[in-house]
Structure formats: C-alpha cells, structure tokens
C-alpha cells in the first residue's frame, strides 16, 4: 500500500517537472525571439554569442548577486544580449514580468536608483511607460509594456559618447513590441 502511494507521488512529481521544463523552454524561446533582430537593431550589431537566459536563481547568470531584487519584484525570466556599434556596447536585458503592475513597480524602483538625476521620458507605440538616464559615458533606458504578456526591457549603453546617443531607446522599444507581439514586430526573428 505504502509503496503504491510513494509510486503515485513520484509519478505526479515527474509529470510536474516535465511540464515545468517544457514551459521554461517555451519561455526561453519566446524571450530570445523577442530580442531585436539584426535588421531592427541597425546600426547596432547583435553579438549572438553573448545571449544569456536565466529564470529563478538562474537570474544570477545575468545579475550575479543582484538577482534577488529582480526575483523579488516580479521578474519571471530574463534574457541578455550585447549589441555593438563602433566603440559603444549596448547591453539589452528583456525581462518577462509576472504582471503589468510588477513591471511598473520595477520601473519605479529602477528610476529611484538615480535619485534626483535628470530623467527623460521614453515613449513609443505599445509601451506603458519608460525613462532614459544619461550619465558620463553611459545611457540607460528602461521601458515596459504588454498587458497580456508584460515585459520590462533595460538597456545600458556604455562607452565614450554613450551619453550623447541620439536614439538610446530604439532597441528597447523593439524588444518590448516584439515580446508583446505588436503589429510590425518580428514574428520569426532570425538571429
């Protein structure tokens, strides 16, 4: 009797774990495919080999010890890819959020990290909100959107002259629109 019960529990656990693994693979694919394609990213060039995916504790792959803040604030999974343009690098991190509210809250937390620093609004079709911060040799963009599939995308552009980058939000807007499946987004992105 006891053996049968243990066997039943193990079967349930096996089914649950296979479902979880399958869902994780789908999410990974969805996020990777939502990253700006080479065509969308121009004049930036994607460094495909830098693509890193993480969910749960796996967010350490992207944020190391800083992962907990993201995990605690509604990040379900994230994918990172670096893009290059001359001497500049843009680190794009697209986060799948647990809800639109969580995306908005994390956006506010990220904004608060800059204190009273000058912040520009980032706006675009399909976005719920966003902002841009410029500091010497750096421009950072945070945008979020997507009601059914909420995402938050951060971009940090580093290098000499990064703070003068004319369209820092372009890559982030493309990523969020792709993720939301907005019109014009890449359906089957080629990377």
């Amino acid at each position, binding site marked *: 009797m006891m053996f049968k019960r243990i066997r039943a529990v193990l079967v349930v656990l096996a089914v649950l774990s296979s479902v979880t693994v399958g869902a994780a693979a789908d999410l990974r694919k969805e996020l990777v495919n939502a990253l700006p394609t080479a065509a969308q990213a121009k004049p930036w060039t994607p460094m495909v080999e830098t693509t890193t995916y993480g969910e749960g504790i796996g967010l350490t792959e992207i944020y190391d*010890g800083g992962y907990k803040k993201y995990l605690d604030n509604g990040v379900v999974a994230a994918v990172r890819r670096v893009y290059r343009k001359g001497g500049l690098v843009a680190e794009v991190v697209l986060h799948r959020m647990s809800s639109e509210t969580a995306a908005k809250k994390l956006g506010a937390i990220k904004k608060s990290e800059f204190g009273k620093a000058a912040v520009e609004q980032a706006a675009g079709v399909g976005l719920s909100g966003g902002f841009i911060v410029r500091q010497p040799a750096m421009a950072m963009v945070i945008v979020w959107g997507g009601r059914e599939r909420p995402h938050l995308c951060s971009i940090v552009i580093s290098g000499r002259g990064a703070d003068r980058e004319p369209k820092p939000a372009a890559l982030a807007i493309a990523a969020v629109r792709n993720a939301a499946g907005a019109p014009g987004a890449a359906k089957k992105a080629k990377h």
Partner: protein
Amino acid sequence: MARKITRREFFVAAAQGGAVLAGVGLVRWIGKGQAAAAPVSLKRRGDREILSVARGNIIGKGVKDAEQLLRACLEPLGGIETFVKPRERVVIKPCASWMRTPEQAANTNPLLVGALASLCLKAGAAKVIVLDHTCDTPSDLAFQISGISDAVRAAGATMISGHEASAYEQVRIPRGSVLTSAGVHRAVIEADVLIDVPAAKVHNATGATAGMKNLMGIVWNRVAWHMSLSLDQCIADFASAVTPTLTIVDATRVLLTNGPKGPGRTKALHTIAASADTVAADSYAATLLGLSPQRLGHIRAAAEMRLGQADLKRVKIVHASA
C-alpha cells in the same frame, strides 16, 4: 489529546523535510567536489593592525598619479616591498566583472590596477597576473570596457579571464561551516602573493561589497554560494582559507545604488584604503558607503571567526595624502 495528522499533511511535511535535507546535501556536495587539494599557501605579511587611508584625485588623470596615490597609501604599511618580494608570483584581483565604464563605478578604477601591477613589477615580482572570473560575458569585452585590460597591458602584466573550468582546483576550507571546499583558480593556488583590489560599492545581496566578497571572482562555482544556507557565511568561510596578503579598497568613485552591477548613483570620494587585514579594510569600506560594518552579515561572520578586526576603534587608522 494529540490530533492525528492526515495523509495529506504527512506527505506535505515529508516533502518539505526532504527538500530541506536535499538542499543542504546539495550545497555540501557541491562544496566538497572531488578529492580536495592542499590549502592555498599565500604569504601573510605586514602589520595587520594598521589601516592606511589616502586621498587624492586620480579621476581622469594618468597612471603616474595613481601610482603616487598608491605609494602614499602603502607607505605607512612599509611600502609595496613589504608585501612583494623579488621573484615572487603575484596575483592581483580587481573587480573587472562588469561591462561598465570607469565612470559607472562598478569595477575597480583601471588606473589603480595598472599602477599596482607596475609597482609589483618594480618590486621585483617574477610575474604579475591580473585575474577575474567575470560575471558579464564575454570577459574580454568586460575587461575592455572597464579599461582594465589596457591598463594591465601598459603596465607589462598579464590579464587572464577565469572562464576555463579546467583552470580550477578544489581547495579545502578547514574552518568552513557552510563552505567546506571551493574550486579556486590555479593562478591563485600557485601564487605567493594575492593582492585584492575591490571596488567599494553597495550590493543587493550582501549590503556592501569590498575585499572578501571580491574573492568570489577567483572561484569557479559562485551559484552554489548563492544557493547555500548563507551567502554571508560562505564569504567568511572562504576568506578563512584564501586570505589576501594585502587588500586595497578602491573608493575613488563609489556606486551607491543598484550594486553590484549598476548603473546607479555614484559619488567621487577620491579615497583608497589598504590593510593586511581584509576584514578591517572591508569594515572601513562599509563606513565610506554610509553603512555600519556590524550590520553586514559577511563582516560579522568573519569577525566571529576571528579572521580580522571589524571594530574600527581597535584599528590604527593612518591618513596619508598624495
């Protein structure tokens, strides 16, 4: 009369207990690894009761200015010659982990790393290796954007990335209560001197980071530490076995929010602090960030293990100016 537990409650409790035991077992298993090697035999030198603090603006200046600041800071400790002897192998461990520019203060100031490598070579070191197992990949891009690889090359030292699993050997941590062994980069195992040059900054997981936390960049499996029962204790455990000969905290510009990676709010403090006691150096770094060392778990754990002095009232703090 005691209530009988239901079948459901029994299975839930059993599953929870099993998960906890499996978690503990996993961490200890990861920590134990294979046959543990001999402990690291880094030299212990210098007066551990002194913490030297130097101020001078090197931001946007040259490596000569950084060298002058370093010399001023090391002078009360007897100079670099106290720590580096002729023909010795030196490993310098900066924070070069992030694909961030020096202005963002997530990495060690490249001028400081270059100047330190240069000083070690002038002291007669046979070889100076600058090492980091970067968090951001590719590591060469992190080294490049941080400015550290250029500074190291200009100094005549060697920069290596810690991304080769085969370059690590298991090191036993006899005093470790959570971490009993760890894969340590062979360059450190073979070195005579380890100079830890962390960037002082806030850290989401540990409150602040400086010398002890920076040593995670010479370790292969960092995730095991994050998954363990206590990251703070892992950091202290590791420092009990792999103790830097000298720690020089870079607070020329500090990251005050969104550490360790940034970007966030930064502040130029134009300060460096050096000590043979990493715990004292870390405690001082915490105060520069406006934090109390006693409130940081890894510093408290290290102090409880008597690895160094966390009470700065008991440290002889010497101020120098470049």
